[in-house]
């Protein structure tokens, strides 16, 4: 999509909402440094509006997918959807019509039914949403479009999978929650890392109690994207780099935050209550540009305001602490951190060569002597049934080490079997809330900001999630 909408003032550096919120609590007196900034009141449900917690999908014999956004991510995932048993891609859409045609050609060449093509305008997706042969809409457009397209898909009666983040502002997150509840359709974040093999094994170990009582976890998205951000082709119209010129947010920490939240049963017995953010100076992109980008490149007109390392410290109702980091503008090897600790042990991912999967572990009473142990045997014992069942298929069909395919296979299975989603709109909203809340906290000089309870009280109830029971994919007739 080439046309960028006007950016909300609330996401500008030192955003208006953040300033308003911070001052509102301190009018007439010196601000209380310890007091949390209230983000916004919890909106009431409309009469008749009900929770989507534990609401199963209606049974779909075949899941028919419509895709919006066919750039690098969308095109790759479209292939993934097309190879899941019982799933077919019936429509594809991109503002650039040639992309829709190219993806449709590719599916047809692979022996799949040719999907209908939509494109040529920024509202082409609305025509696609009118189709009655689309059950699930997958959205992989630039961030600024996710909310509007996700909401429109819900209102059109579709279930929705949205790439990160589902929305960038609090009122948008609430609106997606409400729209999901009113339309009785599910919307989920396409949080593929929650289906990572190490992440799921870590989750199952947490539930077994190997870490004891969980006290803290760390995750993040630490990915040197500088080369891609300055590429003239990778992110269409440099949409992702532009975000670094206009927002201080922790844009994309969900890949690290969500698996930790799952292991802490966030929205399933615990909830995130406050967030406080810090940010380092934005040095990385400007330094890279100075060294590697020609002076006639359009980026030289830009000023970067997004801190290189944005760190969110999140507290939960049960007194746990999560550290969620975001850094895509510094030179460094890739990491999502993915560490979980409790009263009896700790797991750390991305820890080098101690194990084939990259993780290391130390849990009592299995271990003593203050030395890390390989994660291999634990990953084998606590391997999630999804990886045991479709791990080979995932390796052959999906990107990101197979996580994409596992997410897609599982989503289709849930819809075809009529099961409750592993990830629902409440999880998705909670995991994306740090995007606007980090802006608010930074504007308030790092003061804690209240994290809304998108479940409206249902978080206290234990319920199933990503640590699911093994079930079969319904046979394809």
């Amino acid at each position, binding site marked *: 999509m080439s046309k960028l909408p006007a950016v909300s003032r609330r996401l500008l550096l030192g955003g208006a909402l953040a300033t308003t919120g911070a001052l509102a609590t301190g009018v007439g007196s010196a601000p209380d440094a310890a007091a949390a900034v209230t983000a916004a009141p919890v909106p009431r449900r409309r009469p008749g509006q009900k929770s989507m917690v534990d609401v199963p999908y209606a049974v779909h014999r075949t899941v028919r997918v419509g895709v919006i956004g066919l750039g690098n991510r969308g095109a790759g995932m479209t292939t993934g959807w097309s190879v899941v048993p019982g799933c077919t891609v019936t429509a594809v859409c991109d503002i650039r019509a040639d992309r829709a045609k190219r993806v449709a050609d590719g599916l047809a060449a692979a022996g799949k039914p040719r999907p209908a093509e939509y494109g040529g305008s920024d509202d082409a997706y609305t025509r696609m949403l009118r189709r009655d042969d689309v059950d699930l809409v997958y959205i992989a457009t630039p961030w600024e479009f996710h909310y509007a397209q996700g909401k429109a898909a819900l209102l059109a009666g579709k279930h929705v999978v949205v790439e990160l983040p589902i929305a960038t502002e609090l009122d948008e997150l609430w609106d997606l929650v409400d729209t999901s509840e009113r339309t009785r359709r599910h919307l989920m974040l396409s949080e593929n890392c929650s289906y990572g093999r190490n992440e799921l094994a870590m989750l199952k170990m947490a*539930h077994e109690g190997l870490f*004891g009582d969980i006290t803290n976890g760390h995750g993040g998205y630490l990915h040197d994207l500088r080369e891609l951000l300055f590429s003239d082709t990778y992110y269409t119209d440099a949409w992702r780099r532009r975000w670094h010129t206009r927002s201080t947010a922790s844009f994309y920490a969900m890949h690290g935050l969500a698996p930790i939240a799952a292991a802490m049963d966030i929205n399933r017995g615990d909830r995130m209550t406050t967030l406080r953010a810090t940010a380092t100076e934005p040095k990385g992109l400007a330094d890279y540009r100075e060294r590697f980008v020609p002076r006639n490149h359009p980026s030289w007109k830009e000023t970067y305001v997004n801190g290189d390392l944005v760190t969110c410290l999140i507290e939960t109702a049960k007194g746990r602490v999560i550290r969620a980091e975001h850094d895509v503008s510094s030179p460094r090897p890739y990491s999502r951190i993915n560490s979980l600790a409790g009263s*009896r042990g700790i797991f750390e991912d991305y820890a080098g060569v101690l194990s084939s999967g990259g993780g290391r572990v130390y849990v009592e*009473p299995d271990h*003593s002597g203050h030395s890390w142990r390989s994660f291999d045997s634990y990953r084998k014992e606590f391997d999630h049934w999804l990886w045991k069942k479709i791990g080979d298929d995932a390796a052959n069909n999906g990107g990101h080490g197979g996580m994409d395919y596992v997410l897609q296979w599982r989503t289709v299975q849930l819809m075809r079997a009529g099961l409750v989603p592993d990830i629902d709109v409440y999880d998705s909203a909670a995991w994306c809330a740090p995007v606007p809340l980090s802006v608010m906290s930074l504007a308030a000089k790092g003061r804690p900001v209240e994290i809304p309870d998108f479940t409206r009280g249902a978080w*206290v*109830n234990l319920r199933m999630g990503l640590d699911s029971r093994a079930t079969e994919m319904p046979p394809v007739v």
Partner: protein
Amino acid sequence: MRPAGLIRSLGAVVAAGALALLPATASAATPSVTPSPSAATATTVSISPVDLDGPAVSTVKVTVTNAGPERMRSLKVSFGGPVGWAVQPSVLQVDGSLAKGASAEAAFRIQVPERRAGFTVRTFTATATYRGGDGAGSATGTRTQHSGTPLANLAAAYNNVGVTDESDTKPGNYDGEGNSFSAQKLAAAGLRPGGTVDALGAELRWPDVPSGTEDNVSAAGQAIALNGRGSRLVFLGSGVTSGASGTATVYYADGTSGSGSFGFPNWSFDPADAHGATLVASSDGRNRPHGYGNAGIAYRVFAHSIPLDPAKQVAFVVLPGNGNIHLFDLAVAP
């Protein structure tokens, strides 16, 4: 006083239907596997069987029966499972009061993980606090459920190399730092592969395995099958780092169990009687990763024991969950 009728959670809003509203009834309790100590007039707390077919969220019922002479008031019931298993809620309050002989039932939900392969022991605990009743103020009930089959013997649980030959010390890692006993020096102290060791009235056996192979167990809650009847269960081993102590649980053939705590001194630096242990053998020096060393310093093996019910046949023992305890053998002493 109002009769007991309303059970509510403390400290959190709970969705309707999550908790059972159960009237007081006479003695509807489900017996626990290991009931709390009881006399005819003592309050009893029992826990219903827990469905361990996870991953799942299971419902557990706790029944509190007032066997005391007075009405029971201000009753609160707490429930917990193995560490790390989430419970909802953690405490329930029973409004009103319980007449003598009446019971109240509280429902809790617990997150049950996927069943682990091998042998597992799961212990659940419920505690009632109250006024009146038997006057004790509190009572506790436990339920222990186990699944799987214990390991055939201690050798099947070997997970550590504690003895190496002085000509090849690299395989050793008794202490987590690559050090191990010297086979030559142990032999000089009387400990040879397959040899008998008499300690604390038991006849134990030194591991009959070649040097440089797994020969001892770093305790981690393993369940070990064991036959015999006697007065004490004797452990042969020593500790590494510090704090090498813990509780072993003995399960008898009749389904009952008992437990006892024991500990070992560090293999080198603690006093020889630390934790009440008895010195069995002392070897000179140790094998380091690159050869024999630390001559002149004693590296030691100890014995310790826990009591058994001599009237009962032992079926298996669950070792302490403390990896600093290293065991070379265990045996029943008459």
